[in-house]
């Protein structure tokens, strides 16, 4: 049976051809192909992982941003409140100061009035004394003319003084 009998010639050709093709492919084709596929698989895997981590990072950043924004808002509110308080205080202080000042002015005015009054009174007193002296002088002058008249006059003068 020729069909199942190996042929030496074909064997030799096939052995040499297969061995050399195997050797050449092993040297020049397969490592490049297999390594490239593996390398690409790895790089895809890494890229997926890094994309995942980038996504997480992004979410974290976003959360951070939100937090910062919130904090900033709170800070702004605080600052506004503080400023308002400060303003109020200044206004209040100004008011107090103004009131004090006004009071001081009024006080000094009152004191001036008082002192003027005292001065006026003392002047009046002095005037009265002078008047009294003048009256007394006039009285003394009339004494010697008529006692009765003198008395009446005196009395009249006294009345006049009393009115004052």
């Amino acid at each position: 049976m020729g069909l199942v009998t190996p042929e030496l010639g074909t064997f030799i050709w096939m052995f040499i051809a297969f061995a050399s093709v195997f050797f050449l492919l092993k040297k020049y084709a397969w490592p490049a192909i297999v390594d490239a596929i593996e390398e690409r698989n790895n790089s895809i895997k890494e890229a997926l992982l890094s994309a995942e981590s980038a996504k997480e990072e992004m979410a974290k950043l976003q959360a951070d941003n939100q937090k910062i924004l919130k904090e900033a808002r709170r800070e702004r509110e605080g600052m506004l409140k503080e400023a308002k308080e400060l303003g109020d205080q200044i206004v209040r202080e100004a008011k107090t100061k103004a009131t004090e000042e006004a009071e001081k002015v009024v006080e000094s005015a009152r004191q001036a009035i008082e002192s003027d009054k005292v001065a006026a009174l003392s002047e009046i007193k002095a005037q009265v004394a002078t008047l009294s002296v003048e009256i007394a002088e006039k009285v003394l002058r009339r004494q010697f003319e008529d006692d009765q008249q003198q008395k009446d006059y005196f009395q009249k003068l006294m009345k006049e003084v009393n009115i004052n």
Partner: protein
Amino acid sequence: MKHIHRLLLIAFFFTCLTPAFASVSDEHEHEIHQESHNKKKFEPGNFIMDHIADAYDWHVFSYGDFHFTAPLPVIVYSEHSGFHVFMSSNFHHGHSSYKGFELAKEGEYRGKVVEMVNGHHVRPFDISMTKNVVSMLISMIFLLWVFISVAKTYTKRKGQEPKGLQAYLEPIIVFVIDEIAKPAIGEKKYKKFVPFLLTIFFFIWLNNLMGLVPFIPGGANVTGNITITMVLALFTFIITTVNGNKNYWKHIFNTPGVPWWLKFPVPLMPLVELMGVFTKPFVLMVRLFANITAGHMIVLAFVSLIFIFGEMSPALGMGTSVISVFFVIFMDVLELLVALIQAYVFTLLSALYFGMAVEEHH
């Protein structure tokens, strides 16, 4: 799943390329010629054998009496007349002898080059570039060209998506690595065997497909040739044996888990195991050869039916041809599947043997 889709797509692509009709018509014409020329009765056995067996020339087409064949070099060394190199066209399709050599028509050496010595046929040492050898060399060059250029593409387009031929071959390469090498050999040691597995997978698949193409550069029955499958199996055997570790040899000569009296004084188990070392590659050789040859035989048998019935009456032959052609197309499509499956099985079993050879004790 994705790999399988791609594979099916490629198989479909080859289906389109393989004109099943051509295989029929080609053989048809050839036979009509033989019949009219020789005026001999049609012999389906010889017809089938001639188409399956190796040849010294490569038949392209025949029309009536006109044969067109590509002559191939005959290289023989004879003890009687020395070394000879000449073209097979000198035999004139087996009708004449040349330098004392001729093609045997009958007997043990039917279809082979023999030398007439003292009225006896003597087979010389024959390293002719036969149809199978040339076809095999063409596919080897094709494989080299394809994969070296694909490798170049990989180097050029590092880290980029696959493109063109590379995109078609990558799923198959990945399939061989991920579905054959890794599960059969193991994650740790598969790398070393990947080049061999890829080489035999693509060599077997390509030649299975080429065998289905009925005209040049196909038409040769390379993977249905016992010598070719023998060399492939021999490589698997050599690689398995060379890589066999301590554990592998221990399993053969001192199989664990077997009662001692099966090993001593009569080493029954070691003998059985040692036989297994040789039967494994032997089975690989026979399986590929038998599957491919059987497929071709069935196709040719359906074609023969046309001539058998045609000899009885032309009308009967015409009627039979309709049915036969239908079955031949069916078989050719089936053979496309077998071409892939046999390449897969040969590669997978080789990988399993390598896996056994490098398996660590556990």
